[in-house]
């Protein structure tokens, strides 16, 4: 029998004869690998997933051109910076008078569908067949569900509502009509653009600085309450997840090391027999280390797969979007587990090497 075959046989037998011992060792490594993989995978995707939840807050940046209107070139520039994931709604405002009550109403011109999409938290009731969005207070005080007759200086128009909305802001006192109609009635083009920049807090900050640098004469104002809350909540949640996962991984690792060390110490008789049969310290170390490495590798591989499944499922269950496995994590997890197992199994051998094999075999 060749030396390598003998080694393989020894390793296989050691695991096979004491299946339960090998099993507990594999389980303890697998637990560490699972929890480390799950926590790190979730952590790496958390910022993106949580930032998405801030979508519903509506516009997070407002552009205002101080004089004149936003030119098509400027809007193209904004599109480039904001990207396809974000939203841009140019808006123009004018004051109109309702012809019967003589009440002054702020009328906005915008892409009405995009506006609805941007403000998904508003509550809409679709009752009309027109194309205007009417604020709840306008409806309560003036229209009561019917059409609205407005005069814009010389021009006047009948506004047919497509729906009514509650926002809890000044918009409740406003009416939004399609931008083309608005421009036709007033001649005014948008000088304000409501933006929702998608992404992590840092990406949003970068986009804001790019916008400020690229659009002279345009005031770029982040809606600070939203951007601040997003930064705070995302940052702190990440920190909590990181801190608690780190604590859990370290503690479970220690737990695994204790199990491993304990089980090696229990094998002092194996150790003594090997030594008594003439094995050198190096050979014994090598044997124990190879066994630990093999068990750890099996445990870590199983743990990595299970960890990916858990992260995927947590993403699905909590964020309605899967958290995909990070293949980059597999190597550190496998190597880390093997290194830990090696340390845990070879450290106690030093202790045993100080004792005479005869003494161990006698049961001292």
């Amino acid at each position, binding site marked *: 029998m060749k030396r390598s075959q003998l080694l393989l046989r020894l390793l296989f037998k050691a695991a096979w004869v004491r299946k339960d011992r090998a099993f507990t060792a594999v389980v303890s490594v697998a637990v560490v690998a699972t929890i480390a993989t799950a926590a790190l995978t979730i952590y790496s995707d958390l910022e993106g997933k949580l930032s998405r939840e801030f979508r519903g807050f509506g516009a997070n940046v407002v552009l205002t051109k101080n004089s004149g209107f936003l030119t098509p070139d400027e809007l193209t520039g904004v599109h480039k910076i904001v990207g396809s994931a974000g939203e841009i709604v140019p808006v123009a405002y004018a004051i109109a008078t309702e012809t019967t009550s003589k009440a002054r109403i702020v009328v906005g011109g915008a892409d009405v569908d995009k506006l609805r999409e941007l403000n998904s938290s508003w509550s809409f009731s679709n009752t009309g067949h027109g194309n205007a969005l009417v604020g709840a207070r306008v409806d309560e005080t*003036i229209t009561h569900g019917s059409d609205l007759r407005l005069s814009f200086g010389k021009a006047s128009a009948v506004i047919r509502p497509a729906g009514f909305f509650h926002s809890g802001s000044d918009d409740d006192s406003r009416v939004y009509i399609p931008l083309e109609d608005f421009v036709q009635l007033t001649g005014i083009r948008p000088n304000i653009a409501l933006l929702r920049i998608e992404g992590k807090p840092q990406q949003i900050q970068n986009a804001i600085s790019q916008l400020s640098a690229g659009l002279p004469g345009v005031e770029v104002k982040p809606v600070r309450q939203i951007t601040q809350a997003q930064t705070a909540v995302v940052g702190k949640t990440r*920190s909590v997840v990181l801190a608690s996962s780190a604590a859990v991984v370290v503690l479970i690792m220690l737990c695994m090391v204790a199990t491993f060390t304990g089980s090696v110490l229990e094998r002092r008789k194996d150790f003594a027999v090997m030594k008594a049969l003439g094995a050198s310290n190096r050979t014994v170390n090598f044997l124990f280390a190879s066994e630990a490495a093999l068990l750890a590798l099996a445990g870590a591989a199983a743990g990595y797969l299970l960890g990916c499944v858990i992260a995927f499922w947590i993403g699905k269950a*909590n964020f309605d979007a899967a958290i995909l496995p990070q293949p980059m994590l597999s190597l550190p997890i496998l190597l880390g587990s093997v290194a830990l197992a090696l340390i845990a199994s070879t450290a106690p051998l030093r202790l045993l090497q100080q004792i005479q094999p005869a003494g161990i075999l006698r049961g001292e």
Partner: protein
Amino acid sequence: MFLRLLFESFRRQKRRKSVALLAIALGMSIATAMIAVGNDIGDKINQELRSLGANLVITPIEDTLDVNIGGVNLKPASEGAVIPEQDLIKMKGIFWGHNIKGFAPFLSDKKNIETRGGEVNAELIGTYFAQPLRHGDDQFSTGVRTVNPWWKVEGEWPQDYGNWPEQLPPDVLAGRKLRISGILDSGGAEDQAIVAPLHIVQAILGQPNAVQRVTVSALTKPEDAFARKDPDKLSPAVRERWYCSPYANSIAYQLRQALPNVRVEQIRPVEQNQGKVLSRVTGLMLLLSLAALLAAALAVSAAMAATILERRQEVGLMKSLGAGNSAVASLFLTEAAFLAIAGGLIGFLAGAVLAHRIGQSIFGSAIVVHPVVLAVVLFGAVLVTFLGSAGAVRKAMQFDPAVVLRGDA
């Protein structure tokens, strides 16, 4: 005899027992820390979400439409209805009064203001900054500093002027100059306005006791289908349940009852979304805690199983000396229970310290571990060690004592 066996087992196998104890203590400290963090994270993140500001707004029902473009208010203060300022304190008297974390009243109008550089026409906004108020025995202060935490001031915040509810005499400001205490950076329309204590603005505008709008920051429960029900159409029992749930809708309903002739609206972007964000974060921590608890349980079980599996010779010896299966099992399980309780106690203390540290370093406030967690952790420790030991003990007892003692098993 049993006690002596137990005692000797601990005395003679110090190393083996300490390994098991360490594993249990580590596992239980994970359990304690994760339960504590998972349990407290909702409150902590809710505090962070307060920086979104108010979630309810109150306006007079008789009010005319707002005429506001780009943050410039074009509606004179004399037009439209107002809410009496002295009624605002009634908000604290509603069923969910404790959930009202703060409110800020506003009164504003365009005004010519004389400055050193000449006369300017600017919007003058009156509000509370941190106005001390009293409701019954409850003393508190409220204003934009609590409700709009994103407002920043370079210099000093103005002092709220005048003791509510006593009104200032109309001529109190005649000929007096007002000092600018700081430059406000709100990131919003207020950056173009002058913001002053409410009572000064009321005196300047000649509208004592008047408020146009109040924003309210209330702790609410995320809206669900039940929250959207119309309370007036519910049966008395169901209506009571609706009324006693801290939904934004039910708090708004109660505010309308307390303040006659007002409309209360949710500030929808804030109210609709903060619950969602909160439930995502708490849900994530719950699932992570569950995963960690499961991992800790498995790790502890594996450690217990490993220590008992190594003791099959002991089992063989006991059985060959005539011990029954139940006697062996009860000895091992009693040992496990002692280890579990000791490990659980140590783990609880270590976990509490860990949770405290996490709270302090991330949120700047401690995460308090509820004493009931101790009971849960101890119970969990005993359960997990029993589960880990029971399988191994059963396995060890299945072997023939003679074979075990020969060392062949």
